[in-house]
C-alpha cells in the first residue's frame, strides 16, 4: 500500500499541505477529493518524487521513495508530458526503452481501445485524446500502483465515458489506484475509498460502500456535509 504520513509543504508562503495522512491500498481505487488548490496534485507529485516536502513520510509497500519505485508506481499527470514533436509511436518507444515493466501488447490493445493513431504527432492531439494517450502510457506499465491526476477534468463527455470504462476492466484490477478529482459526479460508483481534503489536511476518509450501507449516504452527501457544514 501507499502510505502518506503527516505531509507538510509550503508554497508561496501558503501552507498547501498541513499534515496530510492517508493510505491507498493495493487492489482498491482511492479518490482524493477537494476543491481546486486543495493540494491534491501536490500530494501525487510528492508521492512521485516530483516535488519536495518540508516534512512527512511517504512509503510505498513499506519502502521509502527512490528511483526503483518508478517500476512499481506509474503516474498519469493532468497534462501532456511527451514532447509535442514526437509521434505517438515514438512516445511509446521511449517508454519501452526505459521501463522494464513495459507491456507492449497492452499498449497496442489500448491504442485500439482508445482509437488512437500511432502516426499522429503528440502536439496535434485534442485534450480528450491527449488524456487517453497519457492514460495509455500509464496503464501499459505493469505497475502495482497507478496515480492519476484529474483524469476527467476538461475532457469532453464521450472521452470521459471511454476513460471511465477503463476502471471497470482488468487493466485496473489488482492494482492500487489513487486518483484526484474536484467533481465526483457520475464516477461515485467506481471508487472504493474516498479521501476528503480541505485546508491542506484530510477531513474524512471512508469506504464508499460502507458509508452507503451504514448511513445510506452517497459520497456527494458526505461531501456536502463536510464542505458546507
Amino acid at each position: 500500500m501507499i502510505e502518506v504520513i503527516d505531509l507538510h509543504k509550503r508554497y508561496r508562503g501558503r501552507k498547501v499541505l498541513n499534515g496530510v495522512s492517508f493510505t491507498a491500498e493495493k487492489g482498491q481505487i482511492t479518490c482524493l477529493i477537494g476543491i481546486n488548490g486543495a493540494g491534491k496534485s501536490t500530494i501525487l507529485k510528492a508521492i512521485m518524487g516530483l516535488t519536495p516536502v518540508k516534512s512527512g513520510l511517504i512509503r510505498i509497500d513499506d519502502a521509502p521513495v527512490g528511483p526503483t519505485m518508478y517500476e512499481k508506481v506509474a503516474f498519469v499527470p493532468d497534462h501532456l508530458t511527451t514532447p509535442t514533436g514526437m509521434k505517438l509511436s515514438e512516445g511509446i518507444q521511449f517508454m519501452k526503452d526505459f521501463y522494464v515493466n513495459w507491456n507492449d501488447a497492452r499498449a497496442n490493445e489500448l491504442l485500439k481501445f482508445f482509437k488512437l493513431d500511432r502516426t499522429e504527432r503528440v502536439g496535434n492531439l485534442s485534450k480528450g485524446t491527449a488524456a487517453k494517450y497519457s492514460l495509455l502510457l500509464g496503464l501499459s506499465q505493469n505497475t502495482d500502483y497507478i496515480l492519476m491526476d484529474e483524469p476527467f477534468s476538461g475532457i469532453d463527455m464521450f472521452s470521459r465515458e471511454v476513460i471511465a470504462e477503463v476502471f471497470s476492466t482488468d487493466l485496473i484490477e489488482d492494482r492500487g489506484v489513487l486518483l484526484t478529482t474536484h467533481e465526483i459526479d457520475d464516477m461515485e460508483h467506481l471508487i472504493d475509498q474516498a479521501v476528503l481534503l480541505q485546508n491542506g489536511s484530510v477531513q474524512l476518509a471512508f469506504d464508499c460502500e460502507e458509508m452507503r450501507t451504514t448511513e445510506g449516504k452517497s459520497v456527494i452527501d458526505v461531501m456536502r456535509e463536510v464542505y458546507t457544514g
Partner: protein
Amino acid sequence: MNRYLKLVNMEIHRFRYILFSLMGITLLLQCGSLIWTLQRVVSAKEKGLTQAEVGFAIPKFLSFPWAIVNTKEWFILPILLSITVLVLYSIIIWYRDWFGRSTFIYRLLMLPSARWVLYVSKLTAILTFVFSMIAFQLVLLVGENMLFKTIVPAGMRTDSTFVEASTINPVLNTLLPKQFEQFIYSYGLGIIGVIVIFTAVLLERSYRRLGILYAIGYVVVCAAAILLPAILPALESSSSYWYPGEIYRIELAICLIVPVISCCLGFWLLRKKITV
C-alpha cells in the same frame, strides 16, 4: 550505461535540425564569402587592375590565410553564431523540458535510473555538439583550402600550412589552438562553464521565487573563484607574495573544485530539491 546512452541519443536527436542548420550556415557563409572574395581579386588580377582602381587589396600572391582574413567578418560570423547558440542551448536544454505545451521533465524525473544520469547525459550532449562543430570546422577548412586552389590559378597563389590558416584569425585560433595544452585550458574552462550554468539552472528550478537570485549568485561566485588567482598579482599591494608556480597550482585546484562542487550540488538538487 544503457539508459545514459539512450538519453544522450535522445538529446542529440532533439537538437539535430539546429546542429545541421548551424553546419549548413557555416558552410554557406564561409565558402560563399571565400568564393566571392577570391573571384573578384582573381578577375581583377586577370584584368590587370590596380588597387586604386578597384578599392580593395590586390596582393602579388594570394594565400589561403590571406583569403580568410579578407573575407572579413563573414568567415567568422557563423562561428560566433554557433558559439552563441550552443551557449544559449546549454540553458535551453533544461528549460525546454519545463516550458511549452508538454512538460517532458515529468517523464525524465520519473525514469527508473538515478537522476544524475540526466545531468551527465545533457552535459555529454552539449559537449558532443561542440566537438562535432569543431570537427566540422576542421574538415571545412581543408575543403576550403581545396576550394581556394580551385579558384585561384597556380600562378597567383602561394602555399601555406594548415596551422598558418587556422591561426591567422584570433577567433579561429582560440577555437583550434596550436598547442594541445592550450586546447585543454580553453575547452576545460568551457566545460567548467557549462557545468556551472547547469547547476545554476537547477538552482533556479528548485527554488522558485529566490531561485533566480541563487542561480545568478552562484555563477558570480564561481566566476570570481576562477578569476581570483589570475588577478591576485594585480591586487597585491606589496611585491608578489605568491610564486607564479603556486598561483598556477591554486588556479588548477580551483578549476577542479568548482566543477566537482557544481556537479555534486547539481546532482543533489535533482535528487532532493527539484520541483516540477
